[in-house]
């Protein structure tokens, strides 16, 4: 068809070049690295630089021994710390996703139903914080939440509390931080889905006897399913491995798998263990990533709408 003939007319060599450059880059620095991580997750910890033993050793006389070592994985499964960190990460990511959805959906809906001129301004306001540094925005919450922080000061000044509430370094602070940082990732796909919505369908539903909330539940919600899924994936998947926010706002016992991986790597210099954690995390997340990709494909295909 038209597009294939374009490739032909571009001449194979030019087209191949265009495809090949990003392809090779990604292969080299995105795909191959996972194989290396997999390899190192099977090697022994060594007190050396780099701190692991090679998998392939020559055992004299041209014999090559491949030593696959499942110790790192056994270690992860025997120490309940890792298991509970995994569970906790998934729980935190899930709750954060739900909270993002609860805050983000009405906002995306409100923006989509605004007049076009207002819409662009509101959208700009949603993305603007995203362009300023994540680290600094998380830091802002430290100033708001700490014992003599803004919120406690205001509450005490109003006479609502006598003692400052312990908010910083709690689960609560961590959830606030995650929801705050990931909110734009929820709003944007939801908005781009809702923006395509035919609002006359809601009028038709009301005409057929639906109250406004019923028409929302029966029409808008099912039709925005792909937006909800895409937004949720964009929040959920990275949140599972989130490191910065739990490290800055969460308590010392906020066991998040991203933090564990960081500590194993930087503090314990246990690269093979960190690699094993990364591999397990990937195994958990890859199905979600594939789901996300299929949702994206469906959404851009229009889903028969």
């Amino acid at each position, binding site marked *: 068809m*038209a*597009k*294939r003939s374009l*490739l032909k*007319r571009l001449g194979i060599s030019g*087209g191949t070049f*265009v*495809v090949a450059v*990003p*392809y090779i*880059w*990604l292969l080299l*620095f*995105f795909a*191959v690295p996972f194989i290396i*991580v997999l390899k190192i997750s099977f090697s022994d910890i060594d007190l050396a630089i*780099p701190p692991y033993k090679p998998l392939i050793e020559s055992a004299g006389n041209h014999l090559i021994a491949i030593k696959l070592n499942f110790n790192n994985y056994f270690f992860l499964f025997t120490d309940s710390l890792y298991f509970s960190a995994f569970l906790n990460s998934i729980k935190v990511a899930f709750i954060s996703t739900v909270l993002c959805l609860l*805050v983000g959906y009405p*906002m995306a*809906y*409100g923006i989509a*139903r*605004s*007049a076009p001129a207002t819409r*662009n301004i509101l959208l700009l*306001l949603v993305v603007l*914080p995203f*362009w*300023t*540094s994540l*680290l600094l925005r998380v*830091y*802002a919450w*430290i*100033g*708001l939440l700490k014992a*003599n*922080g*803004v919120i406690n*000061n205001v509450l005490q000044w109003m006479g609502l509390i006598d003692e400052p509430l312990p908010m910083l370094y709690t689960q609560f602070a961590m959830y606030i931080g995650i929801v*705050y940082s990931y*909110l734009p990732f929820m709003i944007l796909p939801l908005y781009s889905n809702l923006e395509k919505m035919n*609002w006359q369908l809601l009028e038709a539903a009301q005409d057929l006897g639906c109250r406004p909330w019923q028409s929302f539940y029966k029409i808008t919600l099912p039709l925005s399913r792909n937006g909800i899924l895409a937004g949720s*994936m*964009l929040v959920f*998947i*990275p949140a599972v*491995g989130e490191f*910065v926010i739990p490290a*800055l706002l969460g308590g010392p016992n906020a066991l998040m798998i*991203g933090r564990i*991986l*960081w500590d194993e790597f*930087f503090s314990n210099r246990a*690269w093979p263990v960190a690699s094993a954690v*990364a591999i397990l*995390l990937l195994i958990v*997340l890859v199905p*979600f*990533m594939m789901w996300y990709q299929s949702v994206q494909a469906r959404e851009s295909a229009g889903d028969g709408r």
Partner: protein
Amino acid sequence: MNERRSLFILCCLGFGFAFLYIPILSMVVFSFNASKLVTVWDSAHSPTLKWYAALLDNDEILDAAWISLKVAVINATGASILGMLAGFSLSRFSKFRGRFALNAMTTAPLVMPEVITGLSLLLTFVAMEQLIGWPAGRGLTTITIAHITFSMAFVTVVIQSRLATFDSALEEAAMDLGAHPMKVFFVITLPIIFPAILSGWLLAFTMSWDDLVISSFASGPGSSTLPMVVFSKVRLGVSPEINVLATITIAVVTLMMISVALWMARAARLDKARQ
């Protein structure tokens, strides 16, 4: 017909934007606070610019900012070129071997947890060094390569969605009229997707400027980026200089966003006038 927002929705919008902006505004306000306690307003000596002066004296932060700036500019340029090629491939060539893989490799980094990307890149750099002796040690080069890898995915998405909304018939018409494919790309395609490339560049710049996790994995001694310095400071609690840094960042970003928005609005108006 579109302006239909119930009171509930308006409240949600108000609450949501308050949630997004109160932390940011609080940093701006307290950057002028004289007190070292940061969040306790010292009305006797505030507002003051003394922390702004202190920041300008802080060599650690300034050095890190210079490193971050260099990395961000190189990264944004590299990621824009690679992202443009990838986006063009995905939206203009409907079938080629490895299309699925390329699509997957440009989607996955969007959601991949940073710790995984960072770890895998570091291990690759180490392995490469053992194998071919390059890159020797970790520093600016490795940080930049790492940044390009994850931020080019975002540029690809931006370019791809722009190319999807503009008709390839335009390009084909030009080729029918006898233009060489390269010429068509530079004369027709590039000007049309230029705004997308620009926003892709800015996006890649910001992601690099902002990144902590991947930089931490990919950096070596003496190549601490700004977020790494900020992170180590913030771990110890609030600091007035960080508020100043935040305020400057916000001011620059806001100015940039506004000028880009105005520029785009003007371009759109010109476009309309031309039709």
